[in-house]
């Protein structure tokens, strides 16, 4: 028994990081190329006019579908970045929304209020967000466990209050701030160009997955995995836990800021929703839904969550739901009710998240094959 048990957060129901698991045998054949294939498929998706009724409102290449997919992809990336903290290092931050919001509002304010060209705004924002994360992280990381979660929550709350206060009319308060598109590259403006936003989101997702994958498989990633299990031990091995945690925190937050930049472009503005602690909570939900500490789990979790979040509003008003008796149709027309319920069921029946589906289905599949 350790001495200070009370204030510790149990490490997440972690999976062993894919990148560090042994077994070259698994890497035979085409497996290494699977991510690449997935990327290519995703990239050429907008050329398809396939209609998936019930799943999307329009054909795959319609702006509405692409817009929805773009948002899903950004959140897939965001969740993967958050997992670097939560699933892979065991740090429970309740303030990740702050850095995402910094990306969204930073870009928006610099473009709309200061009139900077997009690339400058984006660069400044990502740099600024990363520096902010490094500073706040340096302070917050003096605590551990739940205390750390709460300090990060507090910082994020300050961010939310500042945005809501609307100092100098900078952020637009609760009404948010539409992005001034007059100075933006034409390729990013207008419904017909939604596909470019989709590709941008895809690029962001690919970047995050690549970074998280590389970092997890790097010597540093090994240390992070060790930190998740036993921080004291890492210290005695001669490594400064604080430094490594700060690096992970800053990196993950920087990625979140970049995600904010992309999101701002996709949505065409900023609204205070992105500063709320609920956003961080939903990131947590995404990661767990997908499977913490796995390469694809958080990505899938993020995509699925956002998909449900957007599509459930349509589901709630569909005829199928409306024709149900009131005691069913009323709750079902509340997207959050459905989402919350789905999530609880997922925690229950897929403890390892989506990523564990394969291993959990394995026995079933093999027994089927045997027949």
């Amino acid at each position, binding site marked *: *028994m350790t001495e*200070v*048990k*009370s*204030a510790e*957060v*149990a490490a*997440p*129901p972690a999976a062993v990081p894919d990148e560090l698991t042994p077994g070259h045998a698994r890497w035979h054949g085409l497996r290494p190329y699977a991510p690449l294939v997935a990327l290519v498929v995703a990239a050429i998706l907008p050329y398809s006019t396939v209609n998936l009724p019930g799943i999307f409102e329009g054909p795959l290449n319609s702006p509405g579908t692409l817009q929805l997919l773009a948002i899903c992809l950004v959140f897939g990336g965001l969740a993967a970045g958050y997992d670097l903290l939560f699933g892979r290092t065991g740090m*429970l931050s309740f303030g990740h929304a702050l850095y995402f919001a910094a990306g969204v509002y930073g870009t928006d304010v610099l473009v709309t209020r200061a009139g900077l060209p997009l690339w400058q705004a984006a660069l400044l924002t990502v740099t600024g967000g990363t520096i902010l994360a490094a500073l706040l992280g340096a*302070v917050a990381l*003096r*605590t*551990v466990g*739940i*205390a750390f979660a*709460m*300090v990060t*929550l*507090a*910082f994020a*709350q*300050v961010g939310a*209050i500042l945005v*809501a*206060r609307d100092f100098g009319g900078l952020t637009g308060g609760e009404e948010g701030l539409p992005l001034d598109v007059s100075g933006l590259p034409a390729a990013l403006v207008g419904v017909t160009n939604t596909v470019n936003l989709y590709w941008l989101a895809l690029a962001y997702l690919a970047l995050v997955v690549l970074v998280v994958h590389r970092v997890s498989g790097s010597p540093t990633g090994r240390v992070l995995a060790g930190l998740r299990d036993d921080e004291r031990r890492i210290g005695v091995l001669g490594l400064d836990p604080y430094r490594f945690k700060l690096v992970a925190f800053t990196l993950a937050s920087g990625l979140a800021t970049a995600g904010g930049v992309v999101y701002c472009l996709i949505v065409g503005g900023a609204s205070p929703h992105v500063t709320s*602690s609920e956003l961080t*909570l939903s990131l*947590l*939900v995404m990661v*767990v839904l997908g499977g913490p500490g796995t390469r694809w789990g958080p990505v899938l979790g993020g995509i699925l969550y956002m998909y449900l979040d957007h599509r459930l509003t349509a589901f709630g008003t569909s005829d199928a739901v409306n024709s149900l008796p009131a005691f069913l149709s*009323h*709750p079902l*027309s*509340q*997207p*959050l*009710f*459905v*989402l*919350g*319920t789905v*999530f*609880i069921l997922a*925690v*229950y029946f897929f*403890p390892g998240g989506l990523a564990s589906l394969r291993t959990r289905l394995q026995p079933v599949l093999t027994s089927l094959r045997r027949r």
Partner: protein
Amino acid sequence: MSTVILLTLTGLGLAALYFLVASGLSLVFGLADVLNFAHGLFLGVGAYATWWAAGNLPGAGADGLGFLVAVAFGVLAGSAVAVLVELVLIRPLYSRTIEQVLVTVGLSLAGVALLQATWGADARPFPRPGWTRDVTSVLGAQVPNAGLLLIVAAAVVLGALLAFLRFTRYGLIIRAGVENREMVTALGIDVRKAFTLVFAIGGAAAALAGALGSVYFGTVSPGQGGSLLIFAFIVVVIGGMGSVVGSAYAAVAVGLLQQFVNYYGTSGLGDLCVVGLLAVVLLLRPQGLAGKVAHA
């Protein structure tokens, strides 16, 4: 002078409300080690059940004894929901702390949406005795009676919780169970019962907070619990996770700070100060003001 008295007493009323919400949260967190995001739901259930009872339950009403009956019904309902949640959702997940937190997150989303689906998003007038709308003059300050009611209720709850922890074995069992459930069972104790009990008490405290909070606000709405919850969290953490007494101190500090800064400073500064207080306390004393776990 009367301004200071007014601010102090209303600040204490606010503190009492925070404490009522935080006490259940703190108990469940400190003893059962569950960071319960669904606490807001229990709050809402308590408030709506009281509201419903006052209008529909025979013997219950908005005044006098009827009001007491209504509140009692609300508290029971909150407690029952909490027990149900513990039995069905939390119990199978023991020793999987993170998943428990996640389930309560899911529950808070779904539960509030359910309240909204059933009773609508708009605030509804809350049944309450006439005297709670009045004020009492204390040294020239017009202090709302509802605030005084909160203060009294908070004091009673504090006393009751302390007695529970000090004079029953449950406090011990639960603290031990949080560390190592298996071992508690291996000592011949049915630890599950104890945990269910904690949830029942936590739910009851939340429901009471919901009912009395609604008396204070005059209305009940589905989102009410959520907005109080953030401050309750802050109170719990400042007070030291799981320390009921710590929560009481922290609630008073937060309530007064907010009230005075809001009056003497600019708007919104009160909230910022509270968040700042949280950060400072945690950086100086990561274990919170009262430190130890549930040392009642």
